[in-house]
């Protein structure tokens, strides 16, 4: 069994409520941080832990914190990014729904470290029932003296507020999120200035993902040195992976970043193998924005090494033969899935979610959607495949925010690894409407399991 740091107590009846959370070691880290450590020591501990942003970008959290400007007399803000919208990702939802106090405690410690007296949780609007859970946890914490004025007699003040979005993937991008929190359209800002200098209402602001903030609690509890023992190299600690698609056991798993992709997919502790005894065709290991990999490149790197569930190993080979850990949205596709159709749904998604500020993204995502639609519905031309490649090249790197890249990468990877499936759609338009291309040579390198004896 893998060790857990975030979900180790998730199974405890009533852990959603303060008393149970507290009696199971909750708020011990907050007590330690506020009473014995001080802000600088907390930042140092987070730096030492090697914690990297769990929202997808993987930027070192301690470093991000150290950038926050501290002008005299100007308030600082901590904003928790709970706008979880990357297709395939549903881990933060789980954390907030089942262990809300872990997030509240993390926010308390992080705000203390940053010197912020107000923190906002910006949660996607569709998670409409979760703000009630969070607000109840906040009220309980306040009632017990963990929020409000002069917390536990330390002189530190903190209020936490929950704000709902209203349906916009782009608001997961930190500057778009800040715009939205200010009551505007979610148009990303040009950086610099970065939020650490000029963020919410022009004040120094740190925006961190839910899981990142929650991870601060075990880091303070066990110390950065212990935290790095969970994982390999720069992939320290544990990571929540939300697994979905054609697997036996979809759900949220906390993994130590030292297991192989093969173990994650096939072991009963995690995904439990491919549903219906089918074979693995492809997988998008880190949310819809990261490159899709065919089974043979997923389980082993191009060099033939075992692919691990770490930032580095999933990225081994760059985008030519690798992918990314991203947000941990792990989407598995079996032999019956159509890569063209799947890519079309993502192209449609990004077109729908583009804020429209930058022409390459606004126009390019629409073109990609139309061209992919034609190929999927039997009206494609061979030149369309090159056209798609050309469009995605012209989006990538040419937009204010990373949504452009996020829209370009899935299309590029699908063509890079599954070009013959696209060509088959063009050459056999009628057949492609009635059946899928199948596994072809994207062979699942694993032997088929023995048929169960009746």
């Amino acid at each position: 069994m893998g060790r857990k740091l975030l979900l180790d107590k998730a199974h405890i009846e009533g852990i959603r409520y303060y008393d149970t959370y507290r009696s199971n070691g909750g708020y011990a880290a907050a007590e330690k941080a506020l009473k014995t450590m001080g802000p600088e020591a907390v930042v140092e501990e987070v730096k030492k832990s090697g914690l990297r942003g769990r929202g997808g970008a993987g930027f070192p959290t301690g470093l991000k914190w150290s950038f926050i400007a501290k002008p005299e007399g100007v308030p600082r803000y901590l904003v928790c990014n709970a706008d979880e919208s990357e297709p395939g990702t549903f881990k933060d939802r789980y954390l907030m729904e089942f262990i809300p106090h872990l997030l509240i405690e993390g926010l308390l410690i992080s705000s203390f470290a940053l010197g912020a007296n107000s923190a906002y949780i910006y949660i996607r609007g569709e998670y409409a029932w979760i703000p009630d859970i969070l607000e109840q946890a906040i009220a309980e914490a306040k009632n017990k003296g963990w929020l409000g004025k002069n917390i536990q007699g330390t002189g530190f003040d903190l209020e936490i507020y929950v704000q709902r979005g209203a349906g916009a993937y782009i608001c997961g991008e930190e500057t778009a999120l800040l715009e939205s929190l200010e009551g505007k359209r979610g148009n990303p800002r040009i950086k610099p200035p970065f939020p650490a200098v000029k963020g919410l209402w022009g004040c120094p602001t740190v925006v961190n993902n839910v899981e990142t903030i929650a991870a601060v609690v075990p880091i303070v509890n066990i110390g950065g040195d212990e935290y790095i023992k969970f994982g390999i190299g720069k992939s320290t600690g544990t990571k929540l992976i939300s697994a979905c698609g054609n697997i036996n056991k979809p759900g949220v798993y906390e993994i130590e970043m030292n297991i192989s992709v093969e173990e994650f997919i096939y072991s009963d502790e995690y995904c439990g193998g491919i549903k219906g005894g089918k074979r693995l065709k492809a997988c998008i290991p880190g949310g819809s924005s990261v490159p899709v990999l065919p089974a043979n490149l997923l389980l082993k790197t191009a060099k033939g090494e075992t692919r691990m569930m770490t930032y580095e190993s999933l990225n081994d080979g760059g985008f030519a033969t690798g992918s990314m850990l991203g947000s941990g949205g792990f989407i598995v596709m079996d032999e019956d899935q159509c890569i063209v159709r799947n890519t079309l749904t993502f192209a449609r998604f990004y077109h729908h979610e583009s804020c429209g500020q930058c022409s390459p993204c606004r126009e390019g995502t629409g073109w990609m959607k139309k061209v992919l639609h034609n190929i999927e519905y039997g009206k494609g031309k061979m030149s369309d495949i090159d056209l798609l490649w050309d469009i995605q090249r012209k989006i990538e790197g040419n937009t204010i925010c990373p949504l452009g890249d996020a829209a370009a990468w899935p299309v590029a990877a699908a063509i890079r690894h599954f070009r013959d499936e696209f060509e088959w759609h063009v050459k056999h338009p009628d057949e492609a409407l009635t059946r899928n291309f199948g596994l072809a040579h994207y062979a699942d390198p694993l032997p088929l399991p023995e048929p169960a004896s009746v």
Partner: protein
Amino acid sequence: MAVVQFSEEKLNKVKEIIARYPAGKQKSALIPVLHLAQEEFGGWLSAETMDYVAGILQITPIEVYEVATFYSMFNLKPVGKYLFEVCQTGPCMVSGSDQIIDYIKNKLGIGVGETTPDGMFTLKTVECLGACGYAPMMQLGKHFREHLTPAKVDEIIAECRAKAN
């Protein structure tokens, strides 16, 4: 046409929301207040409703229109009493959302974006709602309905009809 006016209770809620932000930053309350308004005034935002919200937040109407038209959860035209928002993005698609959408269309006799003649149901397709492990799924009001099958869709429709009667 009913007058657009929050109750005393809702106005207090608005005040409570505005108090979350520093003085003069009441525009930050716009999205939460639009959610309140949509719940309160028939499930959608009419021009009158948006103008009313602009008035109570002391911002210009255009600032409200800009936001209301940007976010997909705000309905700019009337919807049925029950809004089925079925996810159709990749992870749901590989788990059979296309078939569920077709089933609902046939069962209710409406297309995507349409409302049943009795004003009871509206069908919308939406992009990823963050329930990929429990696909196919849809949002119905405040909650998600997950692991959808045709039988489950039948149950949900029956449940809505029973509630409406």
